[in-house]
């Protein structure tokens, strides 16, 4: 409250003070018979000098920022292509910083030098074809050079991955990342978003996941948190139940939607070839930390569950959006292990990271996953501790009573 009052008082007093100053100024102008549009030489010269002063400030500030904050942020590129793009970035920077200094210097210097002087008339100089040609052609040549270098790098970076590159998938959702390694066969299992269940968060496609998705659609989850078609129908048809219209409409829409999705699931199952199950079963899913091996080629696939996210590995110079309904990809090869990078960055707590870099909701800024680059031996030891999708899904599914008729009873009981 007091803050508001003080702000208000300051604003009012400030406005009054300025008003008084302006009136004073106007009276003195009137006395000296000076009009607003007649800029006195003294004012003119002052502004010209300030132009030069500002130039020094701008250039000085830039140099200070470069010295203090120039390349400290992300450290050296920790991937093979990153070294190339960083090199190209530096070339471009040298070029544009030169242009920045040169043209800004000319601008502020001209502003300073050619300020109006009594008795000196401006030089009538409407055009000069030769000059204009020069400054069309020279930028064109420089740009051609930039374009050629840039496209060459771009083609290399976006080219197909080597055959032996390890396949990894990153799955994004509000607000976390999940990694999936392709396993022994180095082939990622197929997926379809309709197969998503609690035990199959990444919607992998196997005969068993199809069955469990159909079961979920038909009879719901065993804890009753998700209602299946059967229960919905029962509830809606039970004359003893009275719903407010809004709830009823919602349940009916829900039922319709689930019925249509179920039909699609049945179609999918009728076409399903159980041979592809193996692709998914040996996949390894990791929700905590992404482990990579130094000097190993990787081919990453990216998926999104809900909205667009962006997989951004600042230290590897990798970035690509993850888009619902579309699989995107990026290949890269980490070249510096986490341990080495900690030494380079002189920060024992440093870690590689993957951040979300496309606005995706309130906790967007927290959506990240730590990345660790290991030696092959470390990686092998870590991977050995991991379970495959088959181990996690099938054992859990068998242990759960979801497929038994008893499940329906619990559902009814919970209601």
């Amino acid at each position, binding site marked *: 409250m007091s803050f508001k009052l003080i702000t208000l008082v300051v604003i009012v007093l400030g406005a009054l003070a300025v008003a008084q100053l302006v009136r004073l100024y106007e009276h003195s102008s009137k006395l000296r018979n000076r009009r607003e*549009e007649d800029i006195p030489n003294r004012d003119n010269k002052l502004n010209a000098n300030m132009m030069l002063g500002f130039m020094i400030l701008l250039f000085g500030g830039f140099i200070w920022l470069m010295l203090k904050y120039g390349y400290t942020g992300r450290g050296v590129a920790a991937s093979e292509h990153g070294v190339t793009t960083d090199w190209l970035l530096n070339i471009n920077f040298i070029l544009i910083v030169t242009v920045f200094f040169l043209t800004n210097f000319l601008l502020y210097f001209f502003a300073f030098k050619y300020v109006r002087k009594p008795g000196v008339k401006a030089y*009538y*100089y409407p055009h000069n074809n030769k000059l204009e040609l020069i400054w069309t052609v020279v930028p064109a040549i420089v740009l051609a050079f930039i*374009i050629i270098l840039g496209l060459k790098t771009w083609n290399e970076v976006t080219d197909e991955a080597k055959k032996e590159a390890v396949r990894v998938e990153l799955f994004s959702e509000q607000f976390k990342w999940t990694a999936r390694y392709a396993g022994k066969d180095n082939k990622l299992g197929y997926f379809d978003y309709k197969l998503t269940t609690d035990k199959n968060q990444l919607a992998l496609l196997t005969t068993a996941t199809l069955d469990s998705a159909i079961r979920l659609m038909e009879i719901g989850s065993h804890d009753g948190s998700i209602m299946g078609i059967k229960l919905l129908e029962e509830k809606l048809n039970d004359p003893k139940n009275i719903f407010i219209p809004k709830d009823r409409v919602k349940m009916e829409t829900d039922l319709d939607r689930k019925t*249509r999705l179920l039909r699609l699931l049945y179609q999918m199952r009728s076409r399903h070839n159980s041979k592809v199950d193996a692709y998914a079963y040996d996949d390894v899913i990791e929700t905590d930390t992404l482990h990579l091996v130094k000097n190993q080629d990787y081919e990453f696939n990216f998926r999104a569950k*809900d909205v667009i996210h962006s997989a951004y590995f600042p*230290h590897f110079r990798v970035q690509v959006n993850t888009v619902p309904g579309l699989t995107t990809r990026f290949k890269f090869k980490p070249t510096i292990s986490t341990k080495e990078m900690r030494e380079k960055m002189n*920060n024992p707590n440093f870690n590689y990271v993957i951040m979300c870099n496309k606005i995706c909701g309130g906790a967007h800024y927290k959506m990240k996953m730590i990345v660790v680059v290991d030696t092959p031996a470390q990686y092998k030891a870590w991977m050995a501790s991991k379970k495959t999708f088959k181990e996690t899904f099938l054992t859990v599914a068998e242990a759960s009573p979801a497929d038994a008729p008893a499940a329906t009873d619990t559902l009814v009981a919970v209601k």
Partner: protein
Amino acid sequence: MAAVAQHGHHDAHAHDHHEEGFVSKYIFSEDHKMIGKQYLITAIFMGIVAMLLSILFRIQLAWPGESSDFLSMFLGETWAPGGVLKENMYLGLVTIHGTIMVFFLLTGGLSGTFSNLLIPLQIGARDMASGFLNMLSYWMFFLSSIIMLSSLFIETGPAMAGWTIYPPLSALPQAVEGSGLGMTLWLVSMTIFIASSLIGSLNYIVTVLNLRTKGMKMTRMPLTVWAFLVTAVLGVLSFPVLLSAALLLMMDRLAGTSFYLSDIIVNGEMLENHGGSPLLYQHLFWFLGHPEVYIVLLPALGLSSEIISTNSRKPIFGYRAMIGSILAIGFLSFIVWGHHMFVTGMNPFLGSVFVFTTLLIAIPSAVKVFNYLTTLWRGSLTFTPAMLFAVGLVSTFITGGVTGIILADSALDIAVHDTYFVVAHFHVVMGMSAVFGMFAGVYHWFPKMYGRMLNTRLGYAHFWVTLVGAYGVFFPMHFVGLAGAPRRYYDNSVYNEFDSVAGDMILDLNVIITIFAIIASIGQLIFLFNFFYSIFRGPVAVQNPWKSNTLEWTTPVEHVHGNWPGELPTVHRWPYDYSKPGAAEDFIPQTVPLADGEEEH
């Protein structure tokens, strides 16, 4: 032709001095000068709001999680409980700040104000081709402004998907609360805005093409009018595409269609939508979005061309090359939109095409810069506040332009895409340049708008505070971006979990940036005071205070309906005959016939 045909009618009209009522003079006015002023004041108001929003989120960025009286004063307990900004509202503020700045201040405000004011005055027309449509255009702009502002006050908050409102985030209220009613209001507001902009643009085009006075050939038009013309053409060709993007989004939200949605599970709910593509939206959006950059920039460049030439007392260097570059920029702006989408999953080959076309734009831009520099060279510069802002514009156009070369190069964009480097780039090249152009225009044509003079000394103070403040905000921001900081992050202290050194650096810079932002916005109070004070109390202007050549300075200081009390002026020369050898004065208005043996430029 049309201008000549209208002479008789208007002359008769201009002589009967009927008194206009308050409503028809100030509110539902069909006079282009009044409509221009209405646009300006609405845009200034919107600009203040958008600037205030930016200060609110800048406070959060510099001092994350600290309680601030300022925040709780403006946002209250709902959006800043205990003076700490809510995550969702942060996104809302960012979104509405961007939307207002780009569309309401720099499109509606800049083009709306100066196209309206200057097109008829500089080509020698009595008014716009259609005064009624012109009025309609303003009132639709006003309505859309009100709707956009109202979305700040609803329970679920304003749109929160960023000013580019990419679906699915903007399509799914389950994903973020602002995608409910807030987004609906955003879409409705923008739909009306687009209609307003289209009507306005068509009017500008028709006026420039048909209502030029006798002798006003296309190659004798001031560069301002050229810039407004090309801007209007860009608007007419690109805004309908944004409308289609918005309508499809509206249908995805309300009618259950799947233009942009596919295979989505949000908040545990499995949606049926299948086959849509979020990339389709991005293509449609940026097909407007990129020309939009030039819709914002070209008028500013046009205004500054005129101001620099007048105050250098020299013809603009390379008049035809300047027209050529405006046309080239206008054309190229339609085939570069994909550079916003290098890392969206778009086909990389398509990306390479956009690299090529985008870097081509640097050529006409470079030509413009060099022409400005040569215009200053050996001039006799008078630093009016307008001239200062115009020189500032050239500086920001260079500084922001060169970083565009990095971003246009797809291989380099990978590392800096969606970081603060991008934010810094477009704020300098588009934000600062366009705002400087707008200020330059206001200072220069204020006497024409209100018949009074602005205070010069306050103008100086305003310029220097703004220049230092704005550079102080956006220059360090490049370094935040190069450190890798993603934009639209509510709190950069998440860096402490993996790289506290980089985190500290980003936070340090953010404090510097916020302090400069506060200084720069307080500096705008000087302008506001000067502007509103001078409307009523400023010294009365003379007819041609800047000794300028263009036609608007041949009209009387007191506004008359129809602009010129007698016949329309006849044009005999181009508008840039400053300091022509052999002439007595250092300026020769366009209405002065060529002397014996004098050559046109």
